[in-house]
């Protein structure tokens, strides 16, 4: 570069959003692309640890493949256990990343900018992890391709009247859609990364940036495409979790056969997803020293969102239980009584984690702006949400309509290992992504810097490009 950063006078004067300090474009690039620096020893240790947990999960899965499904805790009448719990949980997590990003894009909320990438990447990796669970759950996993519709000599064709096939279709659509949404958001950042990197990284970013130059026309089309994609991806996200809810609701299993299930699942998914975005924001902020960009304001706003969603979830849960209680339909009440009796601690953790804790804590501005409080609350929400998925699945299957086949379920070491490996796998994918691609929406953040830069006018200073997008 023949010119130094100091020569870019107009950008030198931009005041960083949320702070009083002045940063050059070069400094902004350096800080926002800090995740791309060469990995440290701690990063390798983390990747090794996560890789080891994934390897353990793969071992557990191969154990299941070679020994048969008896190594899981599944048995009649509970044929859906920890795997489907994991599936519903991860689909839920995936729901919110794209959803939050899309809604904030469409509403043109400026505080969205540092959050976008973390949320969108979360969706892609969590839906990928979620998509593995039904395959793991199948039994005879090597025949999974029977689900793929193509003419074959077996004379088999997928039955699209089954809700499980709706899942396959919806999740495929969501994985592709959210991956394209993530890629679209990264396009201008990849061009910046291309210009600032060397070696194989430069080649990689050059291919992915597709020759982006940032012409005025490219920016116009890009913004229109971003808005259109945000509008298109929201109904897909809602449909995915509604369809997962229909896996349950269109059956006649007591506790599942309920019209409130799709909206209840969607709200639960948004709750766990928002909490997961907050957790990831905290980790990214700390790991890459991005305190100046992920400010207490962002946590404050996400906390308000968490509060609203938690209130909605509490209302939906109350309606579900209140209807069961008031109608007192014997088998429905039996399922609830069994759940409350057998899984009392889990039920209490679920109610505290999903309702009591977020609602009380997120009412206070000071707590919303406290990073540690937000970390505890967001982690608790997701622990509670995993339990909630478990409590939806297992008690209903344990006590169905025929008392002579009532039973119970405890997960085996294989199922626990695979679920832990899924968590580690998600974290590993995210860690690798953060090292390979800009984890912060660089150009979005810099655009805000430009818009909020102040220029002197007489004795005062006015915004250079006020608000207009």
């Amino acid at each position, binding site marked *: *570069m023949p010119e130094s950063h100091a020569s*870019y006078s*107009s950008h030198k004067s931009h005041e960083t959003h949320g702070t009083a300090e002045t940063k050059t474009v070069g400094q902004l690039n350096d800080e926002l692309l800090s995740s791309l620096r060469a990995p440290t020893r701690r990063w390798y240790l983390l990747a090794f640890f996560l890789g080891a947990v994934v390897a353990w999960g793969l071992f557990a899965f191969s154990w299941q493949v070679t020994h048969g499904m008896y190594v899981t805790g599944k048995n009649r009448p509970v044929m859906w256990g920890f795997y489907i719990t994991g599936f519903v949980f991860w689909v839920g997590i995936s729901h919110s990343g794209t959803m939050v990003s899309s809604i904030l894009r469409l509403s043109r909320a400026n505080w969205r900018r540092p959050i976008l990438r973390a949320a969108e990447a979360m969706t892609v990796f969590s839906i990928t992890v979620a998509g593995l669970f039904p395959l793991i759950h199948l039994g005879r996993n090597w025949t999974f391709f029977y689900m793929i519709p193509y003419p074959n000599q077996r004379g088999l064709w997928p*039955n*699209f009247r089954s809700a499980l096939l*709706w899942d396959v279709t919806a999740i495929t659509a969501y994985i592709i859609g959210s991956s394209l949404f993530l890629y679209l958001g990264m396009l201008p950042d990849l061009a910046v990364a291309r210009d600032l990197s060397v070696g194989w990284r430069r080649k990689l970013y050059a291919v992915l940036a597709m020759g982006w130059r940032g012409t005025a026309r490219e920016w*116009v089309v890009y913004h229109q495409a971003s808005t259109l994609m945000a509008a298109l991806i929201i109904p897909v996200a809602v449909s995915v979790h509604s369809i997962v809810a229909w896996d349950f609701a269109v059956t006649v299993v007591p506790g599942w056969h309920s019209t409130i299930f799709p909206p209840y699942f969607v709200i639960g998914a948004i709750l766990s997803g928002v909490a997961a975005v907050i957790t990831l924001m905290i980790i990214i902020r700390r790991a890459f020293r991005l305190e100046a960009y992920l400010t207490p304001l962002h946590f404050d706003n996400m906390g308000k969102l968490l509060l609203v969603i938690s209130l909605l979830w509490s209302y939906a849960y109350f309606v579900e239980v209140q209807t069961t209680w008031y109608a007192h339909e014997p088998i429905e009440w039996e399922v609830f009584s069994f759940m409350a009796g057998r899984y009392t601690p889990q039920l209490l953790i679920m109610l505290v984690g999903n309702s009591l804790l977020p609602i009380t804590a997120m009412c206070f501005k000071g707590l919303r702006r406290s990073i540690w409080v937000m970390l505890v609350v967001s982690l608790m929400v997701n622990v509670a949400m995993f339990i909630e998925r478990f409590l939806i699945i297992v008690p209903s299957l344990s006590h169905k309509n025929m008392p002579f086949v009532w039973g119970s379920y405890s997960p085996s070491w294989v199922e626990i290992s695979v679920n832990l490996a899924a968590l580690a796998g998600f974290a590993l994918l995210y860690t690798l992504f953060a090292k390979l691609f800009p984890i912060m929406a660089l150009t979005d953040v810099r*655009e805000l810097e430009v818009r909020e830069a102040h220029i002197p006018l007489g004795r005062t200073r006015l915004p250079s490009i006020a608000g207009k997008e």
Partner: protein
Amino acid sequence: MEILGIFSDMESAGRGVERLVRAGFTEAQITSLTSVAYPDGVLVRTEQRSWFRWLALAGGIVGAGAGFCLAAGTAWLYPVQTGDKPIIALYPTGIISFELAMLFAIIGAIVGMFLEMRLPPLGKRLYDPAISEGCIGISVSIHTGGGVMACRPGEGPGECIGSIASISAGEQQSLAEGIMREAGALRVIAE
């Protein structure tokens, strides 16, 4: 043919664009290269209308048709009798059609966006990595002297071509280069 001036700040880049327009170059010939988006008119004016959304719509329609064929068409070809349920059920067909319609619309939007941006480019185009560091590029497309520029709807040839069309491409290039250097360009790159 294209010529690219690299400016250190927005003010000098804006000054350069103003002078180019005053010299007879048209807005359609001038574009800015920036690493962040600026509102239309801050540096250059662009055509706001785009067609790629029609491709998204077409994708959605094709996807809905594909979904219908997949769910209803194959149920008809490979009938599975389940109780008294219909072979072609409206509800699942609607769900599959919806999912594929949205998927194809999304793919259509992305493909259309790249087509409209003309990315990836077929040939090499002028660029300077300093743009990612905050510099602003002003690019002028030089058209062959006497040629006819594409006019915007409602514009007559006189308005959209301007006086610049009367001089040769080489003269246009040196004129644009001179204007940009005078406006404060750090350097000017020509094809």
